[in-house]
């Protein structure tokens, strides 16, 4: 990031000048994003890449209008121009606004923090990652005995994000969050049939994450199971039955149908033309969404998580938020603007993915609170059902009500035991049905990484989502192509 102390003085002067020029609020964020990646296919390197640099994003509030300006030209003139641009944009917006923007009053932080790396990402060499990619590919290839592994691609990326945030009302946050990321894609082929699996690994921390993930053994085992599903999978039963969803699907559902609809900017309509609105309305808080087992938590403070942060990009301390609690719609994700509109306090949900991006209400790590059963107990009294362990295809509508997941690794449950594999079962449910029919959950909480998209220009932020295995009762299942 260069020397933040050099910039700090410059930024404080910018903030002063912004206030003198009529702004009631000025926020300056210096942000750098640096990292590297390697991409491999079938055990061979395709290429190496690095990215880096950064710049400044400035927000100004003038008479209820918001302006944002950004530059990566770090000389004094360019920074002055960016400030002037943010202030004039805000003034221009203000002239057209009947509903003036305000910011909630908050206890803002002055703090500095860094996510811990046991082994520095900066020391992770391309040579090591090349060997790692080969090792994973080789183990997966060896594990596939009955089908052909026609494609195996893998990439590893490092990302070190540093921010210095100063606001005119006293926030002063300096942070450094390193992240490691791996993604892979493979295709199994046999007699004209194919099966494809894409998955990813991510967390905040250092190179030690690679050892913790144990990618080669996890993916090899999965490839073997997928071979069986591909070769021997039967068509799914087309009837209403109990469905056990694996942690991966549960996690995604929490992100899509709990996290997104509980973003306050969606609820209020700011994202109407982009990511859409929400089935949740300002008057929905306190109303029922599902069974008493439905408690969904959003927590940026989980150490090692992809969505990790301790203070948001407006300087508000981060904390766990209970989106749905014991079956009721409870607490939305709020930044200072939406908190002001809803007469609440911000709960520290503002995130920006690059210096050139405005902070928006974003998720971090979203999960369903686990229960106390074992997996065996979860399925023991299901006489006939289906277990969907993983997925590929999924989507959800723009108010987050109509959702679909297509199982990849799936099985029949018969008399309380996992039975024959099933190919491509389709579960298409409403959010109300999903949470209303959530009958049981086990104690095995697991998180999965993702990149959450929102905003315009588009901002992808790293998140985790997770949950235990759950049992939904009386769910209609279809086959792909029905």
């Amino acid at each position: 990031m260069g020397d933040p102390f050099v910039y700090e003085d410059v930024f404080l002067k910018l903030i002063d000048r912004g206030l003198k020029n009529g702004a009631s609020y000025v926020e300056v964020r210096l942000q750098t994003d640096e990292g590297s990646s390697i991409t491999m296919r079938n055990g061979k390197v395709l290429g190496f890449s690095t990215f880096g640099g950064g710049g400044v994003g400035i927000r100004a509030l003038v008479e209820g209008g918001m302006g944002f300006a950004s530059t990566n030209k770090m000389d004094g003139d360019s920074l002055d121009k960016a400030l002037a641009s943010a202030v004039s944009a805000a003034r221009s917006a203000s002239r057209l606004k009947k509903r003036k923007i305000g910011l909630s009053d908050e206890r803002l932080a002055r703090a500095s923090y860094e996510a811990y790396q046991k082994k520095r990402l900066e020391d992770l060499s391309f040579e090591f990652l090349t060997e790692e990619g080969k090792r994973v590919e080789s183990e997966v290839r060896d594990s596939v005995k009955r089908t052909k592994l026609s494609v195996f691609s893998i990439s590893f990326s490092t990302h070190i994000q540093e921010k210095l945030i100063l606001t005119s009302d006293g926030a002063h946050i300096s942070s450094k969050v390193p992240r490691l990321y791996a993604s892979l894609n493979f295709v199994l082929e046999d007699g004209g049939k194919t099966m494809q699996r894409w998955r990813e690994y991510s967390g905040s921390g250092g190179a030690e994450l690679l050892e913790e993930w144990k990618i080669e053994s996890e993916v090899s085992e999965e490839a073997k199971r997928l071979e069986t599903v591909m070769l021997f999978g039967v068509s799914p039963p087309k009837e209403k039955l109990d469905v056990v969803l694996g942690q991966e699907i549960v996690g995604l559902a929490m992100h899509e149908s709990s996290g997104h609809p509980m973003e306050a900017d969606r609820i209020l309509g700011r994202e109407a033309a982009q990511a859409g609105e929400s089935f949740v309305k300002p008057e929905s808080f306190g109303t029922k969404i599902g069974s008493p087992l439905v408690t969904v938590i959003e927590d940026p403070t989980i150490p090692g998580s992809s969505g990790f942060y301790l203070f948001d990009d407006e300087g508000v301390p981060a904390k766990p938020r209970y989106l749905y609690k014991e079956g009721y719609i409870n607490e939305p994700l709020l930044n200072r603007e939406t908190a002001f509109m809803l007469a609440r306090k911000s709960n520290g949900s503002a995130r920006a993915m690059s210096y050139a991006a405005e902070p928006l209400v974003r998720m971090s790590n979203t999960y369903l609170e686990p229960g106390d059963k074992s997996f065996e107990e979860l399925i023991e009294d299901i006489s006939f059902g289906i277990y969907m362990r993983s997925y590929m295809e999924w989507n959800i509508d723009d108010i987050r009500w109509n959702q679909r997941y297509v199982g990849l690794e799936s099985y029949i449950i018969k008399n309380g035991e996992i039975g024959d594999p099933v190919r491509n079962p389709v579960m298409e449910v409403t959010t109300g049905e999903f949470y209303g029919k959530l009958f049981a959950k086990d104690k095995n909480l697991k998180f999965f990484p993702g990149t959450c998209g929102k905003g315009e220009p588009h901002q992808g932020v790293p998140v985790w989502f997770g949950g235990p295995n759950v049992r939904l009762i009386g769910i209609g299942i279809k086959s792909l192509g029905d």
Partner: protein
Amino acid sequence: MLALEIASQILNSIKRSWSDAAVAVIERERSLVKVWDGEPAVIQRWSTVDSYLRLGIEGRLFIIELATSDPRKIAEEAGRLERIAKKIEPSDLYSPLPSPDVPSMHQSCADRRIAEYLQNPVRLLEEPISEAMSAGGERVSGTLTLEVTNRALATTTGFEGTEDRSSLGLHLRAFKDSSSGHWSFGSSNIDEGALKEVGRKAGEIADLSKKIADFSPGKYDVVLSPMVMGNLANVLAMMSSALASMIGYSFLAKYKPGDEVASEAFSFYDRPRDPSLPGSASFDDEGVETWDKAVIERGKLITLLHNTATASKFGSKSTGNAGWMMPRAWNLEISQGDLKEEELAEELKNGIMVMNNWYTRLQNYVEGQFSTVSRDAALLVRNGEIIGNVGRVRVASSFPRLLSSIEQMTRERNNVWWWEVEIPTRAPFSLIRGVEITRPEV
């Protein structure tokens, strides 16, 4: 300093250490107005310069992206990679940069009016929003984006090119009670008539969809709007990239040029040379002159999109679509037909008109199995009449099946460019027979 001067300066500072190198520099000035219920939620402005390097040495391939144009910082990063280059493995996707057929290109297609509006873009929104309200909208949200860029490329093979471009993108979503309509337009220049049309169409669709119609999931004949066709065309463009075939992300990997992959009614073009579309470019990232080309013509696969390296793998030639790693399309165009928009319902007779979509996700890229969710109107048509809106439904199909079932298109096409259509796409309404339409059955 002009982008080309910066690119040349960077190239000169690093070229001795690499067997071949390309340096691209892009200067951008951009403004964006995000509209929320008819008012600006925020006005954003950017002034940036970014540098991109593609470095080759003895078969090793490195790509650098830096949010700076500081030659010292860039040389530092290139030097760091040079020191480790020989320790690492050669790339399976390395091919030397091509010698340019045209060593120097300097194009200026920027609309000066876009540059003038950068400082006060809201003036361009007044009429489109007013049109949306007059046509039936009760509230309007959306985004207007204006951009001028100066893109430069210098390579060790002797290419130097620069071009000034401008772009404008507007999309508006009009709401009437719980119904909505969404429309978009992308262009290289300001066209006030087309901007008003965005508002009018959004308002009209919102108004048209206010009546609710009964619906049961099943197979339907459908009309997909230019917004939906634009979204599917973007996925098809990704799968048309030769690298996508190599890494398991394309159903086209199963086919070779000349094979039938769609119905005869469907042709699909990459149009870098259409100056009216915002993605136009006269040279690619390897300094190869671009040209318009069919990817699919009258249902037959003509070519995948290549850079020099993928072309070498496929025993082909670059199609002027580099992307240093991933070949990419510039602007997309779908062929036109003979229908008029007002004839669509009658021609469809019984079926569903899907006016917008999002979340196109695939179960299997190699097979092309996907589903996508409608947003805004999905209009039920019976006996040639629009009965009402069936709400949010899902189109579930596969690319081979859907493309083979395209029967007719409208003559008129729209230049679509918005959140779900990142590559500007000129697309018609398309009539497709026998498509699975689903939604939850509660």
